C-alpha cells in the first residue's frame, strides 16, 4: 500500500476513520426515512393501475341526469374499443388498513353485479384469481390486505369488521398481489347507475380522454384520476422529508466538520512537511479529498448494505406478516441521502482541503 494513499491513512488510523465513516453513514441511512415516505404511495400503485384501466362513470341525481347517463351508456357501449360494466350505485366502502408509518389509510372499492363481470374486470386489470367460490355478496381482496386486517378466506365482513360496511359479505376469493382494494359482488338492478369503462387497447389518460369525448357536455360524472389525487395529497410529505433531511444534514455537516477540523489540525505538521518538500496545493487538497471520498464510499457501501439488510429484516419479521411492505429503494429516499451526503461531504472536503493546503512548516 503506497504511503500517500488514502487507504493507508484509513488502515493506520482505524479509530478516527471509523468515527468519520459512521457520520457519513448517517447521511446514507436517511434513505430509509425516504423509503417509509414512499411506502405510502407504493401501497397505492396497484390502485393507480386498476383505476387507469377501469375508470368509473356515474349519474348524479336528477331525472334529467339519469337520462343523460343512459344516453352516455348507449354511446359508450356502441364504441367498439370500449367495454362497459354497469354496477350498483350504492355506497360500498373500502377497508381501512395500517401502513408502515403506523397510521390508518383508507382504500378504494370496486363493485360488480356478478362473477362474470368480476372476471371481465380482472381480465382488463390484469388480475389473476380463482373465482370459483364467488357469488352474490362475495368479497374479494388481496393477500396483503387480508393479512393487514387479520382476515382469512371464509370470514364474514360486516359492521363488526368495519363500521362503514352495511350488510354481510363473505370473503370468498383471494388475489395474490399487494393491492389494498376491496372487490364486492352484489347486483342492484334497480339502482344500476354507475359503470366501469374499460378497453383492450386504451388505459390511463387515453381512456379517460375517449370517455370524456363521448360524455361531452352531458351531466355525467367520471371519477378523477386516483393517481393524480393521491400523488397530490402525498406531495407535501416528500417536501417535508426533503426539508427535514436538509436540516438534519446541516446539523450533521457542522458536527462532522468540527470532528474533521480537530482531526486534521492534529495532522497540520504532516501537511506542512508535505508542502515544504514540494507537494503542490493540488497534491495536498487531492490527498484530503481522496481520504474523505474513500471514507465516504466506505460509508455509502456500508450504509446501503445495512439499509438493505434492515429493510429485509423489517419486511420479513414485522411488515410482511401484517400485509405491509417497506420498499428497498425509493426515489425520495435516494434524493434525501444524496442531498444529505453532498451537504456533509462536499463542505468537509473543501474546508479541510483548503486548510491543509495552507499548512506552513515555518510557523510551527
Amino acid at each position: 500500500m503506497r504511503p500517500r494513499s488514502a487507504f493507508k491513512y484509513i488502515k493506520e488510523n482505524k479509530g478516527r476513520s471509523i468515527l468519520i465513516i459512521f457520520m457519513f453513514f448517517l447521511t446514507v441511512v436517511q434513505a430509509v426515512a425516504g423509503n417509509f415516505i414512499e411506502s405510502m404511495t407504493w401501497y397505492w400503485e396497484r390502485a393507480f393501475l386498476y383505476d387507469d384501466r377501469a375508470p368509473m362513470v356515474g349519474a348524479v341525481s336528477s331525472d334529467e341526469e339519469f337520462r343523460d347517463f343512459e344516453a352516455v351508456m348507449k354511446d359508450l357501449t356502441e364504441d367498439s374499443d370500449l367495454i362497459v360494466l354497469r354496477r350498483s350505485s350504492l355506497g360500498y366502502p373500502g377497508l381501512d388498513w395500517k401502513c408502515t408509518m403506523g397510521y390508518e389509510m383508507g382504500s378504494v372499492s370496486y363493485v360488480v353485479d356478478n362473477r362474470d363481470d368480476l372476471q371481465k374486470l380482472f381480465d382488463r386489470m390484469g388480475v389473476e384469481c380463482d373465482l370459483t367460490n364467488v357469488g352474490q355478496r362475495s368479497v374479494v381482496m388481496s393477500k396483503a390486505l387480508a393479512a393487514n386486517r387479520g382476515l382469512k378466506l371464509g370470514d364474514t365482513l360486516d359492521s363488526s369488521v368495519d363500521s362503514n360496511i352495511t350488510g354481510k359479505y363473505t370473503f370468498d376469493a383471494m388475489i395474490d398481489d399487494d393491492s389494498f382494494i376491496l372487490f364486492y359482488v352484489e347486483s342492484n338492478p334497480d339502482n344500476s347507475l354507475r359503470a366501469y369503462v374499460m378497453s383492450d387497447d386504451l388505459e390511463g389518460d387515453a381512456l379517460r380522454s375517449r370517455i370524456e369525448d363521448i360524455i361531452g357536455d352531458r351531466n355525467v360524472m367520471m371519477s378523477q384520476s386516483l393517481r393524480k389525487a393521491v400523488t397530490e395529497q402525498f406531495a407535501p410529505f416528500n417536501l417535508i422529508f426533503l426539508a427535514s433531511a436538509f436540516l438534519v444534514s446541516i446539523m450533521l455537516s457542522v458536527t462532522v466538520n468540527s470532528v474533521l477540523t480537530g482531526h486534521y489540525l492534529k495532522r497540520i505538521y504532516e501537511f506542512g512537511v508535505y508542502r515544504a518538500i514540494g507537494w503542490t496545493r493540488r497534491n495536498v487538497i487531492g490527498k484530503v479529498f481522496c481520504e474523505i471520498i474513500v471514507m465516504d464510499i466506505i460509508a455509502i457501501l456500508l450504509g446501503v448494505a445495512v439499509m438493505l439488510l434492515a429493510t429485509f429484516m423489517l419486511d420479513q419479521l414485522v411488515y410482511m406478516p401484517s400485509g405491509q411492505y417497506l420498499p428497498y429503494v425509493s426515489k425520495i429516499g435516494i434524493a434525501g441521502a444524496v442531498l444529505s451526503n453532498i451537504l456533509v461531504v462536499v463542505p468537509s472536503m473543501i474546508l479541510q482541503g483548503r486548510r491543509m493546503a495552507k499548512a506552513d512548516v515555518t510557523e510551527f
Partner: protein
Amino acid sequence: MYKIRNISMIYDMDTDEKLYALGGFDLDLPDTGLVGIIGPSGSGKSTLMYCLSTLKKPTEGIVEYNGKDITSISSSEQEKLRRKEFGFVFQKHYLVPYLSACENVMVAGTGSDDDVGKKTEKYLKDLGLKEREFRKKPAKLSGGQCQRVAIARAMINDPRVLFADEPTASLDHENAFNVMRILKEYSKERLVVVVTHDRSILGDVDMMVELWDGNLSNVTTR
C-alpha cells in the same frame, strides 16, 4: 550556487514597530560543502534558511540560485525546486506518526515506486538503521533514529541543497555528532546548510555564517 543581495525580512510590516528578522545584507554560498549558520535565538538564522529554500519570501532583496532569482518565480516553480533540488531536515523530525520509517522516507520520493523503495532502503542502511527498524513507526524509534529517518527523507530525491534546521537540537551529544558526520559526508558533492545555535557541532563546517539581530556579524570560510 547562491548569491544573496540586500536580503531583508520584516515581520509586522503594518505596525509602527517593525521587526527586522533580516536586516539587508549580501552573502554568497558555494556549490558544495557544509555551511553552518549560527546565532542566538531571534538572530534570523531560520528566517534566512526559509528564504534560501523558498519557504518564505524576503521583504526585499534577491536570492539568486544557479543564476535565477528564486524570490520572484511562481509558486509552482518554487514547489518544483523544493521537490527536485532541495531537501529538508527539521528541528523536530516531523515524521508522519502513522507511517513506518521506510514509508516516511518513501512519501517524499518522486521517482517510480521501485526506485524510491530501493533508494529508501539504501539510505536508511547507510544512515545506520537496521532492517528490523525499517517497519517501525516513529513512536517506536529513538530520537536519533527518527532524525536519521528525517535525513533519509531529505536525501531521497538526491537534492542539490540540503537544509537542516537545528537537526541536532533534540539529540544527545553522541547522536548529534553522528548526524553531523552524515551531513558532512553528504556535503562532499552537494551543498548542506545547517542552522544551529550550538557552535560545538560546527567543528567540521566549510563555511560559518554568524548572524546577530538579523545581520551578518561574521563569515568564515575554511
